Structures are given as C-alpha cells and as structure tokens.
C-alpha cells in the first residue's frame, strides 16, 4: 500500500511489520515521533509488543540486551547524545552476539548543543561491532528496518539502521508499506540457538580469560580473543548474508538496494562523488546538471558502512579519474572517516596498477548547516579537473569563517 508519511513513521511501520516483541526507548529529538508512533500502535492494540518507557538510553539498550538474551525480538531507537550514552551497551550487545535492531536518527553531537542533522553520532560508533546500514529515502527506511531483523538474526550481530534527522525523519514522502503476510514470509519468528531458560541454565557473558580454557569435561572453550576473532569473521561474512537478504527481499517485494552501494551515472563517470544517506540523492541533482554541461560525473552512496564493502567500492571506482567524498562527519585531527575508508579500499587497486584516482574530501552540513545545491555544484565542478592541487587538504562547504 502506498502512503505518504514521515521517515520516522516509515521506521515505526517497519518495526510493527517485523513483529518486534520488546521495545524500549527514551525520548530524544529527532527520534521521538518514531517511538511515539510505536507506543501509539501498541496502546491501540494494533501491535503486540511490550513497550518499556525507560529512564535513560543506557537502560533502553539494557532492556533490549536482556530481552534478546531471553529470546525476544528487541528494538530501540535513538539519536546523537542518546546513542553516545548507550556506548558501553552498544559494545556489550555486539560482544554478546544479540540481534537487536536500532534506528539511529542521525543528529549532530554536543557540545555545543545541536538538534540538527549530521552523521557524527553513528559514525563515532563505527568500531563497536554493529552492522550499520544507511537509508537514502523513506522507502529504504521501512525496507531496511525489516531487512535489518533478518540480517541481524541470521548473523547474530546487532544492526543500526541510520537515517538523516529532519531531512528524512520529519519530511513526508510517498512509500510502499509491505503487506504483513509477505513480511511474515520474508522474516520468520526469532528462534535463537540459546535463550535464558531455567530449564537449561547457562551463565552468559561471564569473565573470560586471555587464554583458552578447558570446561569441566576437558573440552577447550574460547578465550576472549577467539570470541573477538569470530565477531570479525562474522562481520565480514554478513556481507554475503546481506546479498542473500537483498535477493530474498527482491524476490518477495520486487524492489531492493545495491546491496552494498547505489551508483548513479557511474558507469562511464570520470569523477565520482561518494556520500552517505540522503546527501547522495541530493548529489544526483548536481550530477544531472554537470552531465548537461558535458562533464562525466556520477555519484555513489555507501549503503552499508560496517562491515565496509571495500571490494565492491574499489571495483566501482577503479575506472574513474577522481573521487570526491562529501561527508557530514569528521575524525578530528585527520579527515572524514568515510574518506579514509575509501582511500583504504582503492589501495589494493593502486597496488596492482601503480596509479590511482585522486581523492578529495569535503566536510559539510555539520550540525544542520544548510547544504545549498549551488554550493554542492560549485564544489563538485571545481573538483572535476585532472590534477587538483592540495588533494590532502580538507575542504569545507558552507563555512563562514
């Protein structure tokens, strides 16, 4: 069914269709309409789930961690400082291998306070062991929310579905709401290999030694490092699983994403812009303008940021002369984190050929600074030259200093 609704409602409907069983949330702008919608659906008995209005984000994820450990499908959502307040629990959920799904409605991080959009919040959680998906529009928000549960439960790795605060969360767009019966075909009930149960007691997340250790029957069990190695292996393996999840989704619903990247006018592009989220769609307008001027420009969005699809990205970028990374986040003291990752991804191509495209990095839109299409166009066009100078310098768009 096609409806016109906000991005937050798209996410809420995805959670409903996924039959999440335990939902815990704490209010933070711009996430609130999402969790308000879920509480409304549950109070109106349009959705069967336990809604727990916790006293903090740290507790929100604690509720999800425990509920997931006991075998329930758990969901939470947050933004910015709420996400950072969860930080310890974010690591914990991944380390405990719990398939929790969390929507991150992207917002800049204080201090100073800002409620507006950038990507610093979720990007700063890059190394926690969660899968991160970035939605570019409302359809992707609802679809990713449903796909995230399957991906998480197949891999026993938690998933963040990230989408831009206000730009997507509070804007209204038409999108298709899948039928419940088809979502049920796509996403079977959550059945973990082990759930806390007095009938078969186990002690979860016990203190684990640096080295491997024998159990009471003499069988060797993992040490801490083996457990971490397996998380890394399964994170890498989750890219194959994402391909299967996307294929399954496409077979049932007739639409889908990348799965790793979405390319627009990239096949013959000499200059390719790279971005996360709705910014990549904004850049499509700029690409159209540049193409109309005879410049072979294209834009690529990265749909899954962790695990990082380095091979797919390197392949997509191998023929172009220049890569321009537009970012709403910063690794202070260096450059945009996505830019570093893109450079790393193209490195093995460079190793084979001895040459590589130039990579420019633009920082923009921090704390909701308006991204003006003309500014994007000027920056992109100025980058479409064969040998740009000062490629290592970070470039800022819209800065008034």
């Amino acid at each position, binding site marked *: 069914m096609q409806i016109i609704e906000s991005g937050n409602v798209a996410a809420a409907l995805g959670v409903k269709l996924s039959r999440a069983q335990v939902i815990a949330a704490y209010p933070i702008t711009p996430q609130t309409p999402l969790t308000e919608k879920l509480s409304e659906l549950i109070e109106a008995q349009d959705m069967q789930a336990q809604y727990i209005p916790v006293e903090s984000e*740290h507790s929100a994820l604690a509720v999800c961690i425990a509920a997931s450990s006991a075998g329930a499908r758990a969901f939470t959502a947050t933004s910015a400082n709420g996400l950072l307040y969860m930080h310890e629990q974010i690591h914990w959920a991944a380390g405990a291998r719990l398939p929790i799904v969390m929507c991150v409605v992207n917002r800049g991080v204080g201090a100073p306070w800002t409620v507006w959009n950038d990507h610093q919040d979720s990007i700063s959680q890059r190394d926690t062991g969660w899968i991160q998906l970035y939605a570019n529009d409302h359809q992707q928000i609802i679809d990713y929310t449903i796909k995230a549960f399957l991906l998480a439960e197949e891999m026993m790795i938690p998933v963040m579905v990230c989408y831009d605060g206000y730009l997507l969360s509070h804007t209204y767009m038409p999108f298709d709401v899948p039928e419940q019966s088809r979502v049920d075909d796509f996403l079977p009930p959550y059945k973990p290999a082990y759930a806390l149960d007095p009938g078969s007691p186990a002690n979860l*997340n016990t203190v684990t030694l640096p080295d491997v250790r024998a159990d009471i029957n003499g069988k060797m069990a993992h040490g801490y490092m083996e457990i971490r190695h397996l998380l890394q292996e399964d994170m890498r393996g989750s890219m194959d699983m994402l391909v299967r999840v996307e294929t399954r989704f496409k077979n049932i619903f007739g639409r889908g994403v990348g799965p790793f990247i979405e390319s627009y006018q990239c096949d013959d592009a000499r200059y390719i812009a790279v971005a996360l989220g709705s910014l990549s769609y904004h850049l499509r307008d700029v690409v159209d303008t540049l193409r109309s001027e005879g410049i072979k420009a294209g834009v690529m969005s990265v749909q899954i940021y962790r695990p990082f699809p380095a091979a797919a990205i390197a392949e997509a970028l191998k023929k172009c002369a220049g890569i321009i990374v537009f970012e709403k986040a910063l690794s202070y003291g260096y450059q945009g984190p996505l830019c570093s990752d893109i450079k790393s991804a193209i490195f093995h191509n460079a190793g084979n050929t001895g040459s590589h495209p130039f990579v420019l990095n633009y920082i923009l839109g921090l704390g909701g600074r308006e991204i003006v299409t003309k500014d994007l166009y000027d920056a992109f066009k100025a980058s479409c030259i064969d040998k740009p100078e000062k490629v290592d310098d970070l470039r800022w768009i819209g800065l008034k200093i």
Partner: protein
Amino acid sequence: MQSKTNILSLPEEELVYPGNRACAGCALGIAYRIGLKALGKNTIIVVPPSCLTVLQGLFPIAATKLPSLNVTFASTAAAATGLLGALKALGKKNINVVGWAGDGGTSDIGLQSLSGACERGDNFLYICYDNEGYMNTGVQRSGTTPLGALTANTPIKGKLQQKKDVSTIMAAHGIEYVATCSAAYPLDLFDKIRKALTYNGVKYLHIHTPCPPGWGFEPRYAVKVGKLAVETGLFELYEVDRGHMRLTGASNKLLEKRKLLPATDYFRAQSRFKTLSDAQIEEIQQDIDTRWKGYFESLNNT
C-alpha cells in the same frame, strides 16, 4: 505470620557449587547459597560486575546452577525489566526474575536504573548485598561505606561522610516490600526472600554482608561481626511492608530485651575502624541510642 524456616526445613538442593571463587570467610557465600535456596530453580538471575561476578566463576565454568545474565555495571534493574518484557512477550509465566548486585552497583552507579524500574512497577526482586565498599576492585569507598572506615581511597582519615541509606530511598518509592537482612542471619534472609516474592512490582532486599579482607577481621569471624552489627543496634533488621515499618528477627528480639551491646564491640572487631577515636564512637553510640529510644517508645505506644 508465615512459619519461620529452620535449618531442618531448608531445601536440601544446592543451587551454587561449593569451592567457588569467593574469598575465605566471605559472607556473600552464605547469603547467596541460602538466597538461591529461597528463590528456587525457576529463577533467572541478573548480575552486574561485583564480587558475585568473581564467585560465579570464569568462562566456561560457572558456580551457579541458575540461568545467569552478566550485565554492565549500571544496568542490573533495566536488564531485569528486559527479561520480564521478554518472558511476557513469549508467554512464559511464573519465572522469578532477580537482580543481585553489590552496594556500589546499587547505591552508586545502578541507582538510576533501579529507581526507574521501581517507578514503572516492574515485577522483580532486587537484592543488594552490602559489603560497604568496592571490594572486588580492592576496597574503595562506596556510597554505603560507613563514616570512619578506612578504604584504599580513604586511606588515612577514613570516610568522612555518612553511609547512604538505600533501603529508605527504596521505601520512598512506595514499593510494596523493602527489607533489610544480614548474612549472619541466613534463615531470616530465606524467609524474607520467600515473602518478597509474593508481592508485586520491585521488591528490595538489602543484605549487610561482612567482608573479611575489606573490613579487616579473620575469615572465621564473618558471622560474629555480622551479628555484632545487629546486636549493637547499628544495623537494624526490618521490613517495610506496604508502607508499614517494623523491626524483625534479631532486631525485634533486641526490642523485647531492651538491651543493646555497646557499639565499640563492633568497631573494635575490625581494623578498618582503627582510626576512629573513642569520642567518635561515642557520638555514633549516641545516634544509635536516640534511634532505638524511638523504637522503644513506639513499642510503648502500641
């Protein structure tokens, strides 16, 4: 009133293995062993970092025969809430959910999530074993460390502040059942756990738990020191049953006998109070006497 449990009527089945990693003479070992007997097998337990984490053992060997979820320091109560949510969503009934945390995990870092759960009325039992400091990390002061106690980070003057009264804070939430216990009176603890399980919402038990290395006494004196805390009137055993407070067990007997041991007997049995002067002990004695005068008077009025 329910019949009191005695040593012969305790359930025989042990739910924690002997030879676990608790220190010699650890009173938590007593409270945990008897407490689990009261809870029974149909229980899921939530444990934050604490001495209990050590007692529980090192992966892949566990001392507890119940399903146990180790959680982050601040999140015991919220995790218990999450378990309840899952059990409800999955239609699993009549499973006891119990948070079992230390005093640091309760009075300091865990107080916010515990308060939130009380306000929401989530139906679980929360047990705080109070060994009056961060013993697991090497005896640092906590909110419940008493005035004058030497710890690793109050090493010369002793703690300069009063003990935080968590049980009163919990009772102020208006929850149905709050009780204090001592590891030195395990049968009273058993009865209070059984009673607590019959109430709705969060139930709170606070167990005074002597710690030989942290408090500075020989391991064989854990029960003796625990009893001295009660018999001097310093730590009262009581329950707040739907808002009605009454002394219980050994403290109630003191009320009948109207005679407390001198507080100095308790303080001089532990090296952590060695810098506490006689004058300071006398001040504490006066506080105890004033408090108990109130108990005696309320007894006269009933």
